């Protein structure tokens, strides 16, 4: 449809706002934060990207995948194994996107072309993640080597080289540079998804979420669209995993454990299903809460599971829409200046 720059519309305003915030973060980051904080922010960026991937496939594709962390982990391992073998990061970064995307395509082929129901999809993706967890944990033996890279089982792979400038294997990026790269990638992915959602493909994906049968009656092969959307989500999750691993210089099978799988769903749930900014904010909020709890003595009896479980229950019972749409509703109600001149009669669904 027409992609006119309509400054009056809520959507365009929202997009510009998001863009400005992101660019501000991009340019001001290294000036404002000290090194320690900067490294933390880089990790936030990678989890925000993971949240974005889940926000896309769940909120817009209607695919509730319980194993998005598997693609994150596969991306991370693909980067680690690649960079250790090649001594250079450019191709491994690509691998970290392509390997999980290809794996998701294969898995998606079976799930979507086999017409598995939503429930079965949730179960299968969860089971696949747990199998990766169990399998990688069992690879501590010497025989589990890919090229020069030993998988090391539950101990994980350490001393993973950080990004280098493309073509210059011996010039690694400094933290400031990594910060710029990570933030730029996040911005690109976000706006890339926005553009995708405005394209024919993206609209069909959303339409399938709305009414699969009607989409088929129109002649769209829903299996294909779902498989591709799923695969795109996996590629983004893989890139997030790559960022995460390269900044930590380390990866272990815990990326496949249930903790992360649960968190991803919470980020989206908290941020709001059907938005893209929401899940990113959700991931930020949850990790800040988590870090804060870790420093509180009164909270010593609390453990991850207890906190996460309670949060999920609170949200699913009390704030089912998620924070972002709820905040928007409250803002529209109590802060008149946030109201666009003529709000479209829409039921949410856009940032």
């Amino acid at each position, binding site marked *: *449809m027409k992609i006119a720059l309509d400054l009056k519309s809520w959507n365009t305003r929202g997009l510009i706002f998001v863009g400005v915030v992101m660019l501000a973060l991009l340019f001001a980051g290294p000036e404002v934060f000290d090194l320690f904080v900067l490294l933390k922010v880089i990790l936030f960026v990678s989890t925000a990207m993971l949240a974005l991937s889940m926000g896309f496939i769940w909120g817009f594709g209607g695919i509730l995948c319980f194993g998005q962390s598997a693609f994150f982990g596969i991306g991370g391992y693909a980067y680690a194994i690649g960079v250790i073998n090649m001594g250079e990061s450019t191709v491994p970064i690509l691998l970290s996107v392509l390997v999980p995307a290809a794996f998701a395509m294969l898995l998606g082929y079976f799930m979507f072309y086999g017409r598995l129901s939503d429930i079965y999809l949730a179960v299968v993706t969860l089971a696949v993640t747990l199998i990766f967890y169990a399998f990688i944990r069992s690879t501590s033996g010497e025989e589990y080597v890919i090229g020069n890279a030993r998988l090391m089982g539950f101990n994980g792979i350490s001393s993973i080289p950080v990004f280098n400038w493309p073509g210059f294997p011996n010039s690694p990026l400094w933290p400031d540079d990594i910060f710029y790269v990570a933030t730029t990638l996040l911005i690109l992915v976000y706006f890339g998804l926005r553009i995708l959602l405005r394209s*024919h493909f993206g*609209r069909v994906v959303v*339409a399938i979420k709305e009414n699969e*049968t*009607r989409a*088929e*009656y*129109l*002649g769209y092969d829903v299996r294909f669209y779902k498989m591709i959307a799923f695969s795109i989500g996996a590629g983004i999750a893989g890139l997030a995993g790559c960022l995460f691993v390269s900044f930590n210089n380390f990866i272990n099978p815990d990326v496949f454990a249930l903790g992360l799988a649960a968190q991803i769903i919470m980020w989206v749930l908290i941020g709001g299903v059907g938005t893209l900014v929401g899940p990113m904010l959700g991931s930020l909020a949850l990790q800040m809460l988590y870090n804060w709890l870790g420093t509180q003595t009164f909270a010593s009896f609390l453990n991850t599971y207890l906190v996460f479980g309670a949060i999920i229950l609170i949200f699913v019972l009390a704030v089912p829409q998620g924070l972002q749409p709820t905040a928007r509703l409250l803002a529209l109600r109590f802060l008149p200046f946030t109201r666009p001149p003529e709000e479209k009669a829409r039921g949410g669904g856009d940032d």
Partner: protein
Amino acid sequence: MTDARPILETKGLTMRFGGVVAVDNVDFSLAEGELRCLIGPNGAGKTTFFRCLTHQYKPTSGKVIYRGDEITGSHTHQIARRGIGIKTQVPSVFDGLDVRENIWLSARRNHKDREANRVVDEILERIGLTHLAHQLVGQLAHGERQGVELGIVLTGDPELILLDEPTAGMTHEEVHRTTEMIREINRTASLIVVEHDMQFIKAIANKVTVFNQGAILVEDTMENVLKNQQVRDVYLGKREVA
């Protein structure tokens, strides 16, 4: 208008749900350009028959033949691409999208972007919903949703259109408008219409197929069907009592 060559045929089409035989060994034939009405009491199997034609259900046995090719095993989207459009009994639309986007999704499948937008405007005009173009379809009245669905179907330029109770829930004026539209559609496409409204059927159809308990009871002109004692027993008789 009517041409002897059948556009659609079924041979021994049967659909069972557990013990219920919803469609029972149906041999049906529709000529190119024909407008056929399907009537029959509730639960007669009309909707299920449509769903078998579009492969929403996989028939238990029997064949569906479209323009001489068997399409029994084809997927729903493939059947749609061959030119069969369907308007379902409960409007099947994209509730979370606005009217324009609904129509656009249908238009964009066959047309390039620019052309698609033109087609959308044209269809909106034709179904009289231009003023509602930016309303969410989920927020429209039932009759308007029916209109949107009809618009979606027309946009795809189908050669055979299945309409399941297209006037249900419409106001008198909307029924009138829809009748006109179906007549107009029939100039370019063959149609099968499930209806209950006798006035409506009289106005549009010359041949009527009566379903009862999954099987074809009678196939004749409306006048003869009205005279048929069997039909009165199973269908019209019940309606008079009700």
